[in-house]
C-alpha cells in the first residue's frame, strides 16, 4: 500500500488497547464478587459470578431504569426525525424569508449548555404537568437533537437531484405522497444516520434527564448514581449496571458500522 503511516499497526493497536482497557476493567469487575473486588487485585475474575446481573434483572427499581431510558430515547428519536425531515427539505430546496438566520438560530440551540436550561426546563415541564414522564425528557432533548437532525438530513437531501422532485410532481404525485413514497426511500441512509445521532445524544445525556425526572421516569444512569450512594459502595452491581448501559450503544454501532465514517461527517464529505 502506498503512503502508509510508518508503524501504523503499532499506533492503532496501542490506541485501541487504550480505548478498550477501561471498558474491560468494568466488565471484569461486573463478574466479580465485592469481596474479590476490594480485597485482591486480579486481572480476570477468579470465581466468575452472575450475581451482580441477577440483582439488576430481578429488582424493578433497577430494570425499570432501562425501560425509562429507552422509552424517552425512542420517543425523542421519532419526534426529531418526523419534525426535522420536512424542515430539512425546505432548507435544502427553497430560499425563503430569514432562512439563513433561522438555520443558525436552530444550530445555536445545539450549542446551548444543558446546565443553562436545567432549571427553566424544570419550571416549564412542572407547569404543564409533564414532569417525571418520558415525554418531558424527550421534548427537552429535542432542543439539541432537532437542530442536529435538520443539519444532517439537509446534507443528505441536497444530494438528491431536484429533477426527481419535478418529475414526480409532473407525474401527478401530491406533495405528501412524493415525500413518503419517493424522497424518504432515497434518503433512507441519511434518516438512519440522523436517527443514530439522535439515539446517541439522547442516550448519553444525563443532566437534563435527571433534572426532569424523580421516580416514575428515572433513567438508568440516574438510578446508578443514587442507589449506589445510598447502599454504600456495591461496586459489582455498579459495574454490571455500567456494562448494561454500554450494550444498547454497542448493538446500534454494530448495525451502522458501514455508515459510521460517513455519518460522523454528517453527510458532508
Amino acid at each position: 500500500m502506498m503512503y502508509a503511516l510508518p508503524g501504523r499497526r503499532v499506533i492503532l493497536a496501542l490506541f485501541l488497547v487504550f480505548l478498550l482497557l477501561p471498558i474491560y476493567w468494568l466488565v471484569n469487575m461486573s463478574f466479580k464478587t465485592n469481596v474479590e473486588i476490594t480485597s485482591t487485585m486480579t486481572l480476570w475474575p477468579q470465581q466468575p459470578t452472575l450475581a451482580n446481573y441477577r440483582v439488576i434483572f430481578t429488582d424493578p427499581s433497577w430494570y425499570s431504569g432501562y425501560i425509562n431510558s429507552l422509552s424517552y430515547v425512542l420517543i425523542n428519536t421519532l419526534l426529531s426525525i418526523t419534525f426535522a425531515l420536512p424542515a430539512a427539505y425546505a432548507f435544502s430546496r427553497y430560499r425563503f424569508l430569514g432562512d439563513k438566520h433561522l438555520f443558525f438560530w436552530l444550530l445555536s440551540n445545539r450549542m446551548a449548555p444543558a446546565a443553562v436550561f436545567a432549571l427553566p426546563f424544570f419550571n416549564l415541564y412542572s407547569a404543564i404537568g409533564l414532569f417525571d414522564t418520558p415525554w418531558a425528557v424527550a421534548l427537552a432533548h429535542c432542543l439539541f437533537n432537532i437542530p442536529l437532525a435538520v443539519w444532517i438530513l439537509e446534507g443528505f437531501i441536497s444530494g438528491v437531484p431536484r429533477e426527481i422532485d419535478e418529475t414526480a410532481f409532473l407525474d401527478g404525485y401530491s406533495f405528501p405522497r412524493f415525500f413518503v413514497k419517493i424522497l424518504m426511500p432515497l434518503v433512507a441512509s441519511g434518516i438512519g444516520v440522523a436517527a443514530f445521532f439522535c439515539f446517541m445524544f439522547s442516550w448519553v445525556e444525563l443532566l437534563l434527564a435527571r433534572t426532569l425526572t424523580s421516580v416514575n421516569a428515572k433513567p438508568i444512569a440516574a438510578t446508578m448514581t443514587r442507589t449506589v450512594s445510598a447502599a454504600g459502595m456495591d461496586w459489582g452491581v455498579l459495574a454490571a449496571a455500567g456494562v448494561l448501559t454500554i450494550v444498547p450503544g454497542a448493538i446500534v454501532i454494530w448495525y451502522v458500522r458501514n455508515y459510521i465514517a460517513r455519518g460522523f461527517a454528517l453527510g458532508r464529505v
Partner: protein
Amino acid sequence: MEKIPNQKAWLLVLPVFALVAFSAVIPLMTVVNYSVQDTFGNNKFFWNGVGWYQELLDPTTELGGRFFASLWRNLAFSAIVLSIEIPLGIVVALAMPREGWGVAFSLVVLALPLLIPWNVVGTIWQIFGRSDIGLLGWTLNRVGFDYNYVANPLDAWLTIIVMDVWHWSSLVALLCYAGLKSIPEAYYQAASIDGASRWAVFKAIQLPKMRHVLVIAALLRFMDSFMIYTEPFVVTGGGPGNSTTFISIELVKLALGQFDLGKAAAMSMVYMLIIIIVCWVFFTVMTNAGQDRTAAGGEP
C-alpha cells in the same frame, strides 16, 4: 444547486420552529427574566436591572471571582484537550487499515466510547483511577508514583484530561477517516509518479481534504468541552477544592444547589453568549472556506 425562492417553505419549517421555540425560547425568557430580578424569597421578585451582570463581570466580587476562575479553568481545559485530540485523531485516522476485517473492528471499537452515557464514562474512570480497585491507579502506585486524583489537583486534572481524550479522540479520528476515504486512489498514484515524499502527500493531499471535517471536529469539540459537566462531576465532583470546577459545574451549584437564581441566570446569559460568539466565528470561517474553494474551481 440553485435554490428557488418560495415563501411557502415556511410551512414546512413551522413545526420545527414551533417545537424548538417552545423548548428554547420560553426557558430562555425565564433565564432573562431571572437575570434582571432579585428576590427575598416566597416567590416575590423585584427589578434589579443589570446589577447581577455588574457583579458577575467584576472579578473582585465573590461571584465575579468564581465566574472568572471557572472560565479560565474551562478555557485552559478546552485548549488542552483540543491540542491533544486533534493531532491524535489525525494520526489514528491515518493509521486505519484500508480494507479487511480490521476496518469494521477498528470502527466499532472507535465508536464505542462515544455511545457510553456520560456519567458511566465518569464512573469507568473513577473506578479505573482508584488506587485500591482500579487498574490504572493501582499500577501507578505500584510503580512508585504517588497518584491520587481525589487529593491532588494535578492528578485530578490529568485524570480528567486523559478521560476526555479517551472519550472524544475517536470522534476526531472518525471524522478525519471519513475525509481521507473521500480521496480518490488516483491522487496517490499521481503523487507516487511525481516521487512525492510521504510528508508532501500529507501536506498537499491529505490535510487539505481533511480541512473541512477538521473544522467540524474542532467546532464540536470546543462546544462540548466548554459545556462539560457530567464526567468531571462524577470523577472529582469539581474538587479537590475548586481545582476542576468548570463553568457548568459552577452554574449548576449556583442554580440548583444554592438557588441563587439571579446570579445563575446572569451567568447563564454570559456563558451562552461566549459560546455563541465563538461558534459564530467558527461557522463563518467554515462557510467562507467552502465558498473560497468553490470559487477557485475546486471540488465543493
